[in-house]
């Protein structure tokens, strides 16, 4: 489904991604863990098409198509979704108008007619229930005045609306209290199917109790240095990253 091959990306003169390789198949959940500043968020932004990063080498293909040639919106139409670590506030644009614009453009590219107002509201209400969001949120400006937890819930709500093939959740769990984590975790779980896939970027093992991954990748200095199963998260929780970095460093002969 998604194939990342020897991906290098930089901001200005600074290289952040230094050769990422990753293969994701339908139905799989991949967790990416790793110390701060290792390039996890950069990877998610590059997949989504943020142009602050220049890709200098390598490729990303999604279902055989060259993602790097596409605009962010075209990637979204293909079914790629990025759950932001820090969701952007858009003053003056209400949640409902924002979602209406998004849904109807998605539909346009699937050759479907725009949703009528009644259908749209019904859909919106149903999806808000996924993350136990109050209906009063729909008339408020996108993420404006939302608490950290509400912003993250709003991301999952948008994900539920758009039903992406591949969702990348960038630290969706950071800043959430126990209850909010449960709500978000369960919300994401309900959206999991045999066909769609997820990349879950996290620092904590607890989110993975809700969204059980097939693989865990450890990111360090712009590349994946270890890939293992679910149990690796528990090791990391106990022992940190140093031992993995050392292990990989010796393997690389550093």
């Amino acid at each position: 489904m998604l194939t990342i091959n020897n991906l290098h990306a930089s901001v200005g003169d600074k290289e952040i991604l230094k050769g990422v390789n990753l293969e994701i198949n339908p139905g799989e959940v991949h967790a990416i863990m790793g110390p701060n500043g290792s390039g996890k968020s950069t990877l998610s932004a590059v997949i989504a098409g943020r142009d602050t990063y220049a890709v200098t080498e390598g490729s990303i293909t999604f279902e055989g198509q060259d993602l790097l040639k596409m605009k962010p919106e075209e990637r979204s139409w293909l079914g790629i979704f990025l759950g932001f670590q820090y969701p952007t506030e858009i003053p003056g644009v209400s949640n409902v108008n924002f979602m209406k614009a998004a849904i109807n453009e998605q539909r346009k590219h699937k050759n479907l007619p725009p949703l009528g107002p009644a259908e749209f509201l019904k859909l919106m209400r149903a999806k808000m229930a996924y993350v136990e969001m109050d209906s009063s949120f729909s008339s408020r400006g996108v993420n404006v005045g939302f608490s950290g937890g509400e912003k993250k819930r709003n991301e999952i709500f948008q994900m539920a609306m758009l039903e992406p093939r591949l969702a990348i959740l960038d630290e969706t769990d950071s800043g959430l209290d126990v209850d909010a984590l449960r709500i978000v975790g369960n919300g994401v779980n309900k959206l999991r199917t045999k066909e769609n896939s997820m990349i879950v970027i996290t620092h904590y093992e607890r989110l993975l109790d809700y969204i059980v991954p097939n693989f865990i990748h450890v990111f360090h200095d712009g590349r994946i240095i270890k890939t293992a199963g679910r149990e690796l998260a528990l090791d990391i929780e106990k022992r940190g990253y140093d031992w993995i970095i050392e292990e990989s460093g010796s393997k690389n002969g550093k």
Partner: protein
Amino acid sequence: MESNYLLAPKANHGFICKIPMKGTRQVYVVNGHIQGNEGGPLALSFPKGECDDTMLQVIFVRTTGESGKISGICMSCAPSEKADDGGAIELDTASSIEFGEDCSKKLLLCSHTFTPDRFLTRERCEINVRRGANADITVMQNENNRSVHLTDYTINMEEGSALKMIFISLHGGKISNKLKVNLNGEHIDCNLKGLCLADGEQHMDTEVLMEHYKPNCNSNQLFKYILDDKAIADFYGLIRVAQDAQKTNAYQANHNLLISDYAKVHTKPQLEIYADDVKCSHGATVGRLNEDELFYMRSRGISLHEAQLLQQKAFANGVLEGISSRELRLRMESLVDSRLRGEFSSCRNCSKNCC
């Protein structure tokens, strides 16, 4: 002159304004002359104590068509070369509007051109808001892009009166609104807002002189410009607080969104305060569309063009939400929407359709 204008039947042949809401009465002023009345310039007077929620709409029209008959010719489509030869077709006109004591009225002032000629209109408009009156005025300016319309407003407000005045400027070669507002009594509330959308080589000019002469008055100004192509805007605002005018609250803001690399704005917000117990602030910003917001929207599948429109509409909302009549606000929102989409400038959206 009495305020009870009737819909002028003869002026209504080629054009019916679709803006009016239920109960709106319309007055047509063609080339400076009121239609269907004695034909002088506009002199409106709302009697003392008259309060109602209905709206009076004054439609100010420049045209070279048959006198008295307004034809629905394109107002924004490309002019013929021939029209250039004769130079500008000038008009000097004066109007006066009076809100009598304790009255409460809504007024919609529209200005249009119905032929694509090069009009030059110099207008002096005196507005008197008497003691305790409540004036609610929306000004909609939409003329052809060769037309020049310069208006000098002198607004005199008396004790305990309130004014809300909102300017929406869409098309027009040069639209200049100069306002001198005299707050002549205590406990006055004056609220001015403006939204200018300009592209091509349009020039928008706003000048506000807010004179606080007496204590305990509030004034608030918010002027927003969205400028594309080679459009130019000027904003000159001055709040002057006299020594006597203690406990003044006065605010002024001018925010500008530049869409192209060639659009320009000159902004000069100023304060002159001679009293020592006042709250005043002023500010101006000049910015571009926000890249983070654009990326966020695009990542949800909203195309770049649509995302830019959403941002511009959000920016414009700060002014539009001030329009108190819901029907008028919705109508203005859709006009602004189609203006931002550039749908106005095509022929199918000539004067008959746009308003």
